[in-house]
Structures are given as C-alpha cells and as structure tokens.
C-alpha cells in the first residue's frame, strides 16, 4: 500500500473546490494555491516514479476495499513516468497562463473559471494514468473531458462555441462507446479490474475478446486522434486560448495513446490487431502530415502534425516488441513536451505578431529573435533533427521496425521517414514565412496590426466574418514569466537528449514491464483476499 497514490487526484480536486468557493477574490493567494498544488503533484509523481522503478507496481485501495471489488489505483513504471512528465508540463503551462493573465490584467474569469477547470482537468488526467480498473479509467476520462468542455468554450465566443460543439459531441459519443465496451467486458468476464481482466479475457472465446478489444481501441483511438477518428481535432483545438490548446495537444491525446498501450499490453497481449494498428498508424502519419502542409494557420498546422505524430506511437505499439515499446514510451514523453512547447510558442507569436496566420506574419526573426529561437529548437526537434530527442525516438522506432522485418513493417518504416521529412518541410515553411521573410508592414506596431485585422475582416464576406473571434490585442511586450515558462519547456525537451542514457534505460525497463503483465497482475492479486 502506497498512500501517496491518491494525492495526484485529490490535491488538484480539493484546490479546484477551494477556488470555486473563493471565486475572483484573493488573486495572489489563488495563484499561489494553483502553483503550490501542481508543484506538490510533481513532487508526488517523482516519488511514485522512484518507488515504482525500484519496487515494482505501487498500489492503493481506495476506502480500504480489497480488489477486485474495491477501486484500485496502480502506478507501474508506465503510469508513473507519464504522470511525472505530465506534471512537469502542466506546471509550466500554469506558470505561462498566470503570467498571461497578469500581463493582460484580465478580470476575474481566469481565476474563477480557468483555474478550477484546469485543476479538475489535471485531476482527471492523473486519475486516468493511475486507474487500476476499467470503470475508474472511464471516470478519469469523464472528469478530464468535463473540464475540457469548459476550457475549450472559454469565453463563449462564436468560434469557440462552434468548435467546442464538435469536440463535445465527439467526446460524448466516444464516452458512450466506452460504456458499451465496459458493459461487454463486464458481461463477458464479470469484472472491471484490469489485473483480473488480464487473466479472464484470455480465457474468452476469440470472437468475444476481439469485439471487446476493437471497441476499446476505437474509444482510445478517438481520444488519441488516430487517423479515421481524428477529424475532430484540427477543427476544435486551434480556436482555444494558447495555454488550453497547449495542454490539450500535449496531454489529452497522449491519454488515448496510454489507453492503447494498456489495452494492447495488459488486457489483450498477443497482437491480434497488429495489421489493423499498422494500417491506422500509416494512415495517421501520412494523412496528418499532408493536411499540415496545406495549412496557413500555425495552430491548425501544428494540430495536423499532432495527428501525424500519433501515428508513430501507434506504430510502436503495433510492433509489440521490447525495443518498439521502449521507443514508443520515449516518443510519448518527448511528444508531450514538444507539442506543448510548440503551442506555447505559438501563443507568444500571437502576442508579438498579432495573429497566427502565415499570410499576415513576417519578419519575426528580426523583431522577436528570442521567440524565433524558442520556435526553432522545438520545431527542429519535432522534425527529428539529431541530436534532439525527436531523432532519438524516431531512430528507436525505425530500428524496431527494421528488426521486425515484416513487409508491413518495412512499409511503415518508409512512411515514417517520409512523414518525418514532410514534418520538417511544414515547419520550415512556418519558419520561412513567419520569421525569415520581410515583415508585411514596416514596424508591426500595435496600431498597424489592429488596422490590418480590421481591413481583413471588412474584406471578408459576411458569412465568414461572423464566426471569427475579434483579433487578439497586439502587445509588443512579452511578459518574462511567459517566456520563462516556454524556455523551461524547451530546456526540458533538450534534457531528454542530455539525460538520454538514463531515460532510455528507464524506457527499456518500462517496456520490459509492459511485456510481462504477470508482474502487474501479481502485485494487484497480492491484495485480493484469496487472489484472483
């Protein structure tokens, strides 16, 4: 029993409650609470990671009820490592968001709406990582989604309401599908405890097991935005404020990937859906990146690259070997960090350049060299330029694919290389247009930026204009704390290269643990009276 386990869920949830009671009062105290709680979660996550790495899966039984009836929280290496990286990213994004509010002297809304929903989102994310039974995983998803509904429609502007509706309906549908899947699994096996399921699902007739597996994969595929189920993502993410998009892009899709990894390693090991996952991975990579190439808005472009890079992770899961899983875990960690960083930098670009459309930006390398550097490093990292972590992760995946040696694996390796090059093309396009070319207007001052927006909006036909948000105020100043948070994220992503040895070793141990689910099952069964 490790009683640290409920803390990553409890702390943010309690803080969210306090904030709802306080409303817009005592802003200083509230910001301190947010940062303190998230820092504490990071501390707990690191402690859990150390314990899980040293002693194997950590367990806690909520309310003292024994498994399989009681709710189990489990932190094995995969959960703990994802929890740790997420906590670090979440803390940086919170600093960024607070700095933005302080700089904009925003009224009470960020404190009374954004902070509680953000903390609830964190609670949901952490609960999903730690859930030891399928239904608790569903509840974690729902906590996270309910908070994300609020965050994606923040402010209730027409554009956000429109894109939020798409997001909410897709999320609701996938939640319902998740419930049906749970009903099928429970009806077939009589349990929702994942450790117990691991044994009982293997004994099912193959048809029933396959049905349950495909339903779960569909649910997690929607969350992860793997290709045929990815259409909602580029429509809904770009309209939200920068910190919201950043944390959604970094974390929410990765929880889908986490679900896929759990399904394929713990619940249904053996790779019956290998060919399907490979096809999905290839389609996600290629379709996603082709979509990214034609975009003119940086946020939409990054959303499409997100879809495309989910394909890499699905590829690793499909290969189902120790090397591939290790590379996948590494890639997931790298991608959480890098995708969040890129969206945070886009927020800085938006502040500095007055928008995120490549048609209007230009000359930022001269007017905002620091933003240029902050964009360039993660962009090259995402494109997989050595020696950065994107290269390490992709190299691991490609090696695992070549070691696999099947014809499908070779096709996937080819697709992954092409996708990587095209990612580089898309990001270099952003770099050339937004940073390197001559500025569109001489000074790019606040008045100019506003004026250009005004003309642009006036020139547009009425049907389009009414769905656009009013242009963000162009502020030449970049608050040091926002830049600091972004710098910290870039540094974290570079740390994956500097500390590459220990991290890859940890990923290897994680993969080894994933491939031997017996250890996980034994750890949970030890707490059940009379075993499973």
């Amino acid at each position, binding site marked *: 029993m490790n009683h640290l386990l409920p803390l990553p869920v409890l702390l943010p949830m309690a803080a969210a409650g306090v904030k709802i009671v306080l409303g817009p009062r005592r802003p200083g105290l509230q910001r301190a609470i947010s940062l303190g709680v998230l820092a504490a979660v990071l501390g707990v996550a690191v402690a859990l990671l150390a314990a899980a790495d040293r002693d194997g899966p950590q367990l806690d039984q909520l309310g003292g009820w024994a498994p399989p009836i009681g709710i189990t929280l489990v932190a094995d290496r995969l959960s703990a490592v994802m929890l740790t990286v997420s906590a670090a990213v979440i803390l940086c994004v919170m600093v960024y968001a607070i700095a933005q509010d302080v700089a904009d002297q925003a009224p009470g809304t960020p404190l009374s709406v954004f902070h509680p929903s953000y903390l609830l989102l964190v609670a949901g994310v952490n609960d999903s990582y730690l859930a030891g039974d399928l239904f608790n995983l569903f509840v974690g998803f729902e906590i996270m989604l309910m908070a994300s509904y609020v965050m994606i429609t923040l402010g209730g502007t027409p554009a956000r309401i429109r894109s*939020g509706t798409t997001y909410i*309906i897709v999320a609701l549908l996938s939640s*319902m599908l998740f419930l049906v899947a749970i009903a099928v699994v429970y009806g077939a096996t009589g349990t929702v405890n994942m450790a117990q399921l691991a044994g009982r699902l293997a004994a099912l007739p193959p048809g029933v097991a396959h049905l349950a597996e495909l339903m779960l994969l569909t649910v997690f595929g929607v969350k992860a935005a793997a290709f045929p189920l990815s259409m909602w993502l580029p429509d809904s993410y770009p309209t939200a404020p920068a910190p919201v998009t950043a944390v959604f892009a970094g974390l929410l899709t990765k929880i889908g990937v986490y679900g896929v990894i759990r399904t394929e390693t713990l619940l249904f090991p053996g790779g019956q859906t290998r060919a399907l996952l490979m096809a999905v991975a290839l389609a996600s990579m290629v379709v996603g990146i082709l979509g990214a190439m034609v975009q003119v808005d940086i946020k939409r472009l990054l959303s499409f690259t997100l879809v495309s890079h989910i394909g890499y992770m699905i590829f690793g899961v499909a290969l189902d070997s120790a090397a591939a899983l290790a590379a996948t875990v590494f890639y997931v960690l790298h991608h959480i960090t890098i995708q969040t960083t890129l969206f945070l930098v886009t927020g800085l670009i938006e502040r500095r350049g007055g928008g995120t459309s490549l048609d209007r930006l230009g000359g930022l390398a001269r007017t905002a060299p620091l933003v240029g550097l902050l964009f360039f490093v993660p962009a090259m990292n995402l494109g997989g330029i050595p020696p950065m972590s994107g290269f390490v992760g992709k190299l691991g995946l490609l090696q695992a694919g070549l070691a696999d040696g099947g014809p499908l694996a070779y096709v996937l390796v080819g697709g992954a290389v092409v996708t990587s090059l095209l990612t580089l093309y898309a990001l270099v396009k952003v770099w050339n247009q937004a940073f390197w070319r001559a500025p569109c207007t001489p000074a790019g001052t606040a008045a100019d930026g506003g004026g250009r927006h005004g003309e642009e909006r006036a020139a547009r036909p009425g049907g389009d204009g009414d769905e656009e948000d009013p242009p963000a105020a162009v502020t030449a100043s970049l608050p040091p704390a926002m830049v600091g948070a972004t710098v910290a994220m870039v540094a974290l992503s570079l740390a994956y290269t500097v500390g590459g040895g220990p991290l890859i070793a940890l990923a290897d141990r994680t993969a080894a643990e994933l491939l031997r689910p017996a250890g996980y099952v034994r750890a949970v069964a030890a707490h059940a009276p009379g075993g499973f």
Partner: protein
Amino acid sequence: MTTSAVLAVSGGVLVACGVAMLLERSLSRLVVGVLVLGNGVNLLILGSGGPAGRAPILDGAGRPVSDPLPQALVLTAIVIALASAAFVLAIGYRSGRLSGDDEVRDDVEDRRLTRGDHELRAEVRAQRRRFRAWRREQRRQVRAARAALRRDIRAERRRRAIDDPARIEEPDPGPGDRQDEAP
C-alpha cells in the same frame, strides 16, 4: 452469461435512435440524442449484470442475489450523462444567443480550403460567361440605337428633301441641322 432479451433489444433500439439523433445539426436534437443514447447504454450495462428477478443484495441470505456492481456503474453513468446534457444545453443556449439558431456551423477554415481549384475555375468560367453576355447585350443595344438614329436621320432627310430639294446635297447634317431646328 444469461441476460434479459428485452433489456438487450431495447438498449440496442435506444442506441440506434440516439445515434440517428446525433447526426442532426440542431443542438436541441443533439441533446435529446445524447440522453436517448445514454439511456440505451445504461440498459446495456444493467443487462450485463445477469438475469432479472433476483433478490437485491441485502436480502440475499442463501438465495442467489442480483449483481450490485452494474447498478453502481449505471448510477455513475447517469450522473455523468446528466452533467453532459446540461453542458450541451448551455452551449445550445449560448449558440442561440449568438447566432439566433442552434445549428452547428461548418468550420470556416475547412470551407476556405475545400473551395479548391475546381470551384475557383468554375467560378472564373461563370464570371467570364456573364461578362461576355453582358458585352453582347451592350453591343446589341449600341447597334440598335445606332440603327434607330440612322433611320431617323434618313427619315428626316427625306422629309427635308421634300420640303426643300436644294438642301439634299448637303453632306453632313450633324450639328448644323440641330441648330437649324432649334428655333
């Protein structure tokens, strides 16, 4: 596992109806769709708990009791569906306040991108066709006007030739004519 066919079939029918409603564009229909779908799914979960008609768990001394776990799951699912429906209703209200109806619009960027080459070219062709028709029409009008003018002039000359045969030789009637007529 045995289960009640009524539960399974009605759950299936409700899910089908809910999905059909979800395909609509109007948010108020979407809310109803979410609720119907949620209820269908809840029936399916209840159905996974085994046959109907067993004793509740408190009363189950020695007799087979009904499985309490699906009931607990359904309770959670109902609460979540309630919150989701409330949120969708709020969104629908907000959407109605903003745009006057609760239809879900197309994505602006999507519309812009899908208006690709093909449509643009068709548009250019149509514009050109309209322009040509306009030009033809203008020319026709000019020709008609000129012909009418000429006819008038000829008629005028003929009239004057009858009045005064000496003036018929005059080459250009132009402004001179008009000056003559003015008084």
